[in-house]
């Protein structure tokens, strides 16, 4: 499952999956090319006494996570962090709203990992704000991604059938 997190104004990409009794967690900080990988046995992340006992690199933390979906407070050892966690559903929303999270006036980016289904424009086209640019499949749903403003297509970076990672540039304006 893919997440993006915002902590102390820094953005992180996080992949969480279950593999034979371990949590496989990949973490990448904005600006870094390296994914940090962690194999955390289920038994190292367990509830005890109404709090999570998290054994991380053999350090034992008692952790409490309070979340209303997006805003998240995590407490441990007298310290705490305020962070935002975007799950796939929220990222999709963001993506549809803004034409790609991280997208701007010079490019369209994938807000989450997915597969390109259809491309509706050609290089050189001038497209009005809000018109569909391409269709991407994510979370088993096809989503139209729209032009964030009036733009001229300068380059297509993908073709139908391509799998794309979150944050990948799809179209340059």
């Amino acid at each position, binding site marked *: *499952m893919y*997440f993006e*997190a915002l*902590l*102390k104004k820094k953005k*992180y990409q*996080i992949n*969480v999956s279950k593999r*034979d*009794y371990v*949590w496989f*967690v990949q*973490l990448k900080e904005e600006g870094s090319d390296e994914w*940090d990988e*962690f194999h*955390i046995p289920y038994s190292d*992340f367990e509830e005890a*006494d*109404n*709090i*999570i006992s*998290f054994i*991380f690199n053999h*350090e034992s*933390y*008692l*952790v*409490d*996570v*309070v*979340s209303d979906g997006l805003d*998240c407070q*995590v*407490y*441990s*050892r*007298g*310290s*705490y*962090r305020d*962070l935002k*966690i975007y*799950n*796939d*559903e929220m990222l999709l929303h963001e993506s549809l709203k803004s034409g790609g999270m991280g997208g701007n006036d010079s490019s369209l980016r994938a807000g989450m990992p997915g597969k390109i289904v259809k491309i509706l424009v050609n290089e050189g086209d001038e497209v009005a704000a809000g018109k569909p640019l391409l269709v991407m499949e994510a979370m088993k749903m096809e989503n139209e991604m729209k032009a964030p403003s009036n733009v001229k297509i300068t380059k297509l970076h993908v073709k139908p059938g391509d799998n794309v990672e979150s944050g990948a540039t799809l179209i340059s304006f």
Partner: protein
Amino acid sequence: MFKKVLIANRGEIAVRVIRACRDMGIPTVAVYSDVDRYSQHVLLANEAYEIGPAPSVDSYLRDDKIIAVAKKAGVDAIHPGYGFLSERAFFAKAVEAAGIAFIGPSAQNIEAMGDKLSAIKLMRKADVPTVPGSNGAVETYEDAQKVAEKIGYPIMIKASAGGGGKGMRVVHKPEDLESAFRAAKSEGLNYFKDDTVYMERFITNPKHIEIQIFGDKHGNAVHLFERECSVQRRHQKIIEESPSPSVPEAVKKKMGEVAVHAAKSIGYVGAGTFEFIFDNSTKEFFFMEMNTRLQVEHPITEMVTGFDLVKEQLSVAAGNPLSFKQEDVKQQGHAIECRICAEDPETFIPSPGLVRRFRPPSGPHVRVETYVYSGYDIPIYYDPMIAKVVTWGQTRDEAIARMKRALVEFTLTGVKSNIVLHNSILKSSKFLDGSYTTQFCEKDLKVEQPDLFKHIDDKVFLIAAAIASYKNRETKIDNSQIKIESTSRWKQVSRRHAMRY
């Protein structure tokens, strides 16, 4: 001894007094505002009476309601705790007039020491050193200029009725005198309805050192050594220790003698504290004010002397002579107290609300005074201090090490707290070598430990949040289907083993 005691307070101090009463076999009566129904003091006392709505002026400051409850419940003594009505002479008077003992000094004691100007005058008479200053109110700016010339810069201008940092101004050069003088006067008027100000020398390397004293109704008075309370944020103490790492033996002895002499000179009864400003360069000390009540930080004195100050308060109020003499009081080992506040540790904005998990530390020589628990909702109306962690050690280093350990053990979730601030202070070189002054938190700490949050890796929080979010998503999806989890944990374990081998 008393038959039943009412505690005219809330929070950890009410709990502390209830415990002392229990230790002495005295039943207790709690009073509480409507939002404090589930506060620990209400749960622990033998009897409990609601006295009004949440704002203190409608409940904990209502002397009439409290005395009415005292009569109804048939108590023969009232303990005021600290804050609220504890240093109001009119309350002590009203309690005594109702035929109930006030566990504290006499109304005259409170009155004499309550006003800072009259207290300083009285102390000068008793040969207690005071900071060179105006010797009373400064009426006009012209007078202020004359006084400034006499005592020299830097100068502090203070509102007589002020406290908690309000109505205070420091002036470093003559050209700033006028604006500061007017500002202190108007703040005094705005916050305390009194624009009387006084002036004194400002000490650049100041430490806050106080002496605990105890007097009885038979003319005896003793001191229980010093506490250093220089770690402050916005003029509020946050860490205290006893003994002070800075006061030489000879000076300490002198301070104790001065305090006992002063207490005797005013016929002081009960627990009281003389607060001194201590110049860490010259090792001079000057009287600041007297607190005519039990202090928040009294536990560190209890830890190093072994006496129970609250029990002693009750005993003395009942007319008994002090249970110990000066020569019985020994300062053994070292004690530290950290005040845990539900607040943002950087902005100091209170963080009330639901405490999800509360697991206070324990173990050898760790003492926790608190009134909250898991599931408790911290109200917005009162002090953000929710707990005090006190540790003792044979040496200062040992006490500090224990405190660090205790704070790591302290689990407090759901509200922000200043535990990270304490962790940073306990790692700071100026705290560790004892040279810290009252400016430590504002100046040195910011330089030495600029990031209070660096001590735990962000990854721990990120990964925990991500796994928890994964589980949340999964539960959401699961809940949309009917699914019965039938595999027992025993079976899960054995299957896991089977897969491994």
